[in-house]
């Protein structure tokens, strides 16, 4: 009986919050009461959710990745410059983007794991540098459009799909990304060891875990997630120089709302996913009720604190 209660308590409260928010959204707007409407919500939430999952790897292993927003900008700029609107170059641009992402992740990882620079500072540095590189490369204003087949992932919606009507491509990308990351976190030794590493890196090291390599990999995963989010965002909204601005804090916020504990050792992909969804649903709801924009920022702040206070209460029951 106590076990039953315990597992009930273990249900992530974020899911409940999300369900409540979603109910409110559906109540406010008829659009979201249809499957197509919900899917379009998912489409727009996809970048934040993917970022939140990627960020959670870093957070769970005890670090932070502040460079993800800049990396999104760099990816969009890179895609625009490489393709120059030419659909033939799309695959090259995609490959290059993931290459750039991997490189940024490795740099972050090496600075943190080998250089032992605290990740807040290390990724603050890469945030500046990556953004600077994006600006230098584009001269401050990227030339060129994103070709339609590149924007396909973030923008295209299949119409006349049985049962749901419209089905955004981004949702498929989202599901695949979540599946991969959830498997990495919960279905592999790698993911299980990350929790131990985040909790006590020294103990993990003395138990033979490749602490530095795994920590480095978390930054690579986060960076690759940022690239994916960048491709979706660029696809959804086109080229601009500040696409990624602020996404790093959104990703961290989403993860925290989902119960991932800063400084490591605790968290799950389920939480990260619902944290991202909750954050986006909140934005949508505030949009719908016509809450004045600046106050939405304030509400986001309050929600964030409340979520963290709640998970602190739960966490204290060690």
């Amino acid at each position, binding site marked *: 009986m106590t076990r039953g209660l315990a597992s009930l308590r273990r249900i992530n409260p974020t899911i409940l919050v999300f369900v409540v928010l979603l109910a409110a959204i559906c109540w406010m707007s008829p659009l979201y009461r249809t499957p197509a409407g919900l899917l379009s919500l998912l489409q727009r939430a996809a970048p934040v959710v993917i970022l939140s999952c990627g960020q959670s790897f870093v957070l769970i292993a005890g670090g932070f990745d502040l460079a993800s927003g800049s990396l999104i900008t760099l990816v969009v700029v890179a895609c625009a410059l490489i393709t120059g609107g030419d659909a033939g170059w799309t695959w090259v641009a995609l490959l290059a983007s993931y290459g750039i992402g991997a490189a940024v992740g490795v740099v972050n990882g090496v600075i943190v794991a080998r*250089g*032992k*620079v605290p990740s807040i500072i290390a990724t603050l540095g890469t945030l500046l540098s990556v953004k600077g590189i994006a600006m230098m490369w584009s001269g401050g204003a990227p030339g060129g459009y994103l070709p339609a087949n590149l924007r396909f992932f973030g923008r295209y919606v299949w119409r006349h799909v049985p049962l749901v009507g419209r089905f955004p491509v981004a949702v498929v990308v989202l599901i695949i990304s979540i599946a991969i990351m959830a498997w990495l976190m919960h279905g592999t030794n790698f993911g299980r060891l990350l929790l131990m590493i985040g909790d006590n890196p020294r103990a993990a090291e003395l138990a033979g875990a490749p602490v530095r390599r795994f920590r480095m990999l978390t930054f690579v995963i986060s960076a690759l997630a940022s690239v994916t989010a960048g491709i979706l965002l660029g696809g959804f909204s086109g080229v601009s120089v500040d696409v990624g601005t602020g996404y790093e804090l959104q990703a961290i916020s989403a993860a925290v709302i989902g119960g991932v504990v800063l400084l490591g050792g605790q968290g799950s992909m389920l939480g990260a996913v619902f944290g991202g969804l909750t954050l986006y649903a909140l934005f949508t709801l505030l949009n719908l009720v016509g809450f004045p924009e600046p106050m939405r920022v304030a509400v986001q702040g309050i929600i964030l604190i409340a979520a963290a206070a709640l998970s602190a209460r739960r966490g204290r029951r060690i």
Partner: protein
Amino acid sequence: MSGAAIPRGGLAKFRLPLALVICAAVVYAATALGTAQGEQLSWSGVMGLLQRMVALGIVAVGQTLVLLVGSIDLSVANLISVSAVIASHVMNGNTDAIALGVLAAIAIGILVGAVNGVLVAKLKVSPLIATLGVGLVLQGVLTTSYETLAGSVPASFRVLAYGRVAGLPLAILLLIVVVALAGFVLARTAAGYRLYGVGGNVQTARLAGIRTDRFIIGAHIAASVTAAISGLYLASWLGAGTPWVGRDGGYDLDSIAVVVIGGTLLSGGRGGVAGTIAGVFVFATIDAVFNMLQIDPFLGQVLRGVIVVGAVASYTIRTKAHVA
């Protein structure tokens, strides 16, 4: 029970800050001479360089205190804006209202610091999230109400930023006072010793009979007050507060970066204001040197990132422990 570890020399604490300052100063001087801008080494050139430190320096001192106690404050940037806006609103060009404006700004600082502190110490909210959240709330409230809060500081208040005493800008004196005060408290008083204790290990400090929450809250209040002072200084320097002055200035992440560059541990319990001020000096010289060398601003941004990482890595790379 024998054994003796190497005692810490009294000056060892200052070795890192001193090295940073000397390096930065040499680079500055070399650039000035190398680009034939020797005037930048004149008294007013150097004072101009030092004045670049004031706004960031004051708030970084407060950030040092919260980092030492094992917390962090991301709300300072928005609080700087709030303080600057409130001060110029209350003063509204009126010399008689200066005292009131200063008081209002400091009072808001105390209030915000107390909220941060209570969230962190009592509600156990992760300090990053707590102060990020409070910062967002401040930003939202400020932007919403900015139009009703317009105002400007009177000319007499601008003396704070532009006035001089015996050739030394008042603003630099203000920075010196803040640094000296914090340095004295940390290095000489029981409160300072306990602050290090709380930052080093809360449980240890508590078991040693220290009221730990009071120190955490106190450090947050101190940090917020320095942010408020920084806001006042900026209001004086700029003539009026704007709701973006803090955020655009990047005082949140910059203040953390300079503290860490100055050798204070992010996890708390070790460091001090001497290092912080050295870090601020490094940042000020970066700006000045990039200007002198006419570095492309985007390249400057890249280099700034590299310098931040490189400066911290130069002394963390030899440590054996894992960091996160």
